[in-house]
């Protein structure tokens, strides 16, 4: 009902204006899209809408003038890459015609179709939220923002990445590193295991008497067989993974003593990397598009919220069925969402999409593995296309692993160049 009434009001205004000032009214009728979140999803959707229809006014709201990419930040932690190689600005995004506003979105008036920032209110015809994740400071006893300064999560790249890297380099040889991995769902399902690999690589090459202990709240994980085969081959003395059923779930942490507690006892760490449970970025909750899980149910064709009409959600914040929370997914969803938004603004019906995800993980400098998938809307969610997708072959030769490591790096360069270049 509200939607119908709003459409009617918009229409009335447009027709009335058109009658009084025919030509200017047309110019003023440029539809307005506001996007929140300048990561792989939000920046892509803003640019794609502008590309598909240059007449749409597109505003991108992002809190930070510098974007620090999470993909490949595990290489920074492992000492194989500089954090600067992860950082991008929005100059080219502005040059592409997107109005970039540096600020924090603090509220949405869905019925009035406005987004509120501290000092400005932005009206929209369609709002796209790509807020990524927030860390849940209420989910793991002992772990809060203050604790993260001692026991870094490094699950949002930037200062936290540097902190974890510096703790590893400052640690004496022989020290124990402990990582805590949450239950599903969380950003980047293979990410903790890539990170474990690259920390183990650092320990093996620079601190050979040290070891990494991975305490996991799960019994199974992404690319598990490939990771475990690689660990056995490359890091037999430097990496130990403890599954949920072996007592790996961390129930609480104590930043004073750098200790993690499981059902089986306390584990003191020289360096503790605590990856806490997560939920959709804050603005999603403020906009009313999250459900009881903390994530956002969406229509798999348009990415419009199941809960609030006129608001679309893409990327890590969504409940996207079979699609994992990855940068590639966010970029792929952004393109589909952009096409749908442009159609909806034109009063047309969005087409049934297909989406792709490809995620590389770097296990060692010359050793890459991947998971790839194709998805389509089915039964109201994004489902795997039968017969497609899967992980790298378990028996691939060394040169295939090397090729995937090269492709991983090429992927990062290509996608960041598409999104930020």
């Amino acid at each position, binding site marked *: 009902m509200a939607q*119908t009434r709003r*459409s*009617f009001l*918009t*229409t009335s205004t*447009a*027709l009335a204006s058109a009658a009084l000032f025919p030509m200017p009214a*047309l110019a003023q*009728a*440029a539809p307005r899209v506001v996007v929140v979140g300048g990561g792989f999803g939000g920046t892509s959707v803003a640019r*794609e809408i502008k*590309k*598909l*229809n*240059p*007449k749409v006014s597109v505003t991108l709201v992002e809190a930070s003038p510098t974007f620090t990419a999470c993909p490949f930040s595990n290489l920074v932690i492992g000492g194989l890459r500089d954090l600067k190689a992860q950082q991008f600005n929005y100059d080219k995004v502005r040059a592409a015609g997107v109005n970039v506003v540096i600020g924090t979105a603090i509220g949405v008036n869905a019925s009035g179709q406005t987004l509120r920032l501290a000092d400005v209110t932005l009206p929209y015809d369609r709002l796209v939220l790509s807020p990524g994740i927030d860390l849940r400071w209420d989910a793991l006893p002992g772990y809060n923002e203050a604790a993260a300064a001692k026991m870094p999560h490094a699950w949002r790249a930037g200062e936290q990445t540097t902190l974890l890297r510096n703790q590893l380099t400052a640690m004496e040889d022989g020290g124990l590193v402990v990582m805590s991995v949450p239950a599903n769902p969380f950003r980047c399902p293979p990410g903790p295991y890539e990170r474990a690999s690259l920390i183990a690589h650092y320990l093996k090459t620079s601190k050979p008497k040290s070891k990494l202990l991975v305490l996991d709240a799960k019994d199974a994980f992404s690319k598990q067989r490939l990771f475990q085969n690689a660990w056995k081959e490359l890091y037999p003395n430097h990496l130990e993974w403890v599954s949920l059923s072996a007592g790996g779930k961390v129930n609480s942490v104590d930043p004073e003593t750098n200790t993690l507690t499981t059902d089986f006892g306390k584990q003191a760490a020289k360096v503790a990397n605590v990856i806490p449970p997560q939920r959709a970025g804050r603005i999603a909750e403020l906009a009313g598009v999250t459900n009881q899980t903390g994530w956002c149910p969406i229509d798999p064709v348009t990415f419009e919220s199941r809960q609030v009409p006129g608001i679309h959600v893409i990327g890590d914040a969504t409940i996207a069925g079979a699609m994992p929370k990855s940068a*590639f997914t966010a*970029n*792929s969803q952004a*393109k*589909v969402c952009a*096409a749908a938004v*442009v159609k909806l*603004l*034109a*009063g*047309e019906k969005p*087409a*049934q*999409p*297909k*989406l*792709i995800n*490809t995620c590389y993980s770097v296990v060692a400098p010359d050793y890459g593995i*991947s998971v*790839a*998938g*194709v998805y*389509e809307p089915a039964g109201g969610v994004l489902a795997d*296309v039968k*017969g*497609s*997708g*899967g992980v*790298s072959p378990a028996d691939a030769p060394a040169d*295939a692993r090397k*090729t*995937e490591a*090269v*492709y991983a790096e*090429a*992927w990062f*360069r*290509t*996608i960041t*160049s*598409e999104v930020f*270049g």
Partner: protein
Amino acid sequence: MKIVLGVFAATFVFSASGLHAADAPPGAASCSGCHATNAAAETPVPKIHGRPAAETIDVMTEFRTDKKPSTVMNRLAKGFTEEETRAIAIWLAAQK
């Protein structure tokens, strides 16, 4: 009646501004996540935008049937029918 008016107004505004772009067929927009659209980009991953459609169709068919080895493309090509692959190839060929 209200809805009909709304659609009419939106269509009128858009067509008056000449705002339509060629629609990408399902899946096609995802390719540029790995295959750079910028001809100057330095990458070992082949450029496929602007490539003749027949070439793309041939290669994709070989990936789908595992006649041509690859890293991820065998897994991805199986997600598209012949008809979908053809539509993607034709669209890619038309991109600069």
